[in-house]
């Protein structure tokens, strides 16, 4: 279904629930995996994903069609992720390393993580990056978004995103070499 048709359904009271159900089914996987890669834990990712869709439901009337629906949803998910990580650091008064340690431990203890040693090593290297840089890396490397799409989502310039990604790759490779 085209975004235009979906939005029409979402804005009409009679078809709102139906339209929303389609929206969740269409975007749930992409949004969940985007969040999951940032917060690592399934339960946290599940909570945030649900929050994202509830926010979308609340503010769908405010969505202006100057952006694509997908990028708008992706942006909400990104903000929710960053807010979650920020709250986590603030709530426990943890230094950056401790949150990284907590997320890193989840990579080995969570029942829903099953990578080989190299994959886990890559994930641990990613956790060493600042949250925003990790986000940029995930969008480019795993989600394979174009820089233009990423710029639309993050409202950052393409040049800044390219620099951030290449910097992240270098840091990860340095980590992989040193370990």
């Amino acid at each position: 279904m085209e975004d235009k048709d979906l939005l029409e359904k979402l804005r009409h009271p009679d078809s709102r629930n139906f339209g929303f159900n389609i929206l969740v089914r269409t975007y749930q996987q992409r949004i969940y995996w985007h969040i999951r890669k940032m917060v690592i834990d399934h339960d946290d990712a599940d909570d945030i994903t649900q929050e994202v869709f509830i926010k979308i439901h609340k503010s769908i009337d405010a969505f202006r069609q100057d952006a694509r629906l997908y990028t708008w949803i992706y942006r909400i998910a990104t903000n929710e992720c960053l807010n979650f990580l920020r709250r986590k650091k603030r709530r426990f008064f943890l230094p950056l390393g401790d949150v990284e340690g907590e997320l890193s431990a989840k990579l080995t203890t969570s029942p829903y993580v099953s990578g080989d040693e190299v994959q886990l090593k890559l994930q641990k290297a990613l956790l060493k990056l600042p949250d925003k840089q990790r986000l940029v890396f995930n969008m480019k490397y795993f989600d394979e978004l174009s820089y233009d799409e990423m710029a639309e989502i993050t409202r950052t310039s393409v040049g800044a995103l390219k620099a951030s990604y290449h910097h992240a790759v270098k840091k990860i490779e340095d980590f992989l070499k040193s370990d």
Partner: protein
Amino acid sequence: MGKLEDIPKKQIFSVPEDYFDKLPAEVQSRIPATPVDTPGRPVFRYALQYALPLIVIATILFFYIRPEADATSILATVDAEDLINYLHDSPMTTEDILENVDFYTGDLEAIENEVYDLELRDLDDEQIDVELNTL
């Protein structure tokens, strides 16, 4: 292994079974029910939206901005004959009335002119002399 391209891209995270089948219902259950508009509801809403402020404004205007009716305008609505009868029956003496009533200068002049003009106009010289002599 120091290069990123040497690492195969693989999804290492997984979800509980049927997670994505259940998620839409899970999300839907957390969405507050949309209020259904009954046919009478918009009328009630408009009544509250438009009529209520109008009633409030009208009340304010009635009690606070209404021009005060003064004694002159109230008396103007009373029939002259009724007024004379009232004053006649009233225990007030002429002195009391003169003391209490605040005559306008214009009214006083009019009364004076009416009295003198009438008397002077209606009487000829002889009659005036007679009247003056009887004083």
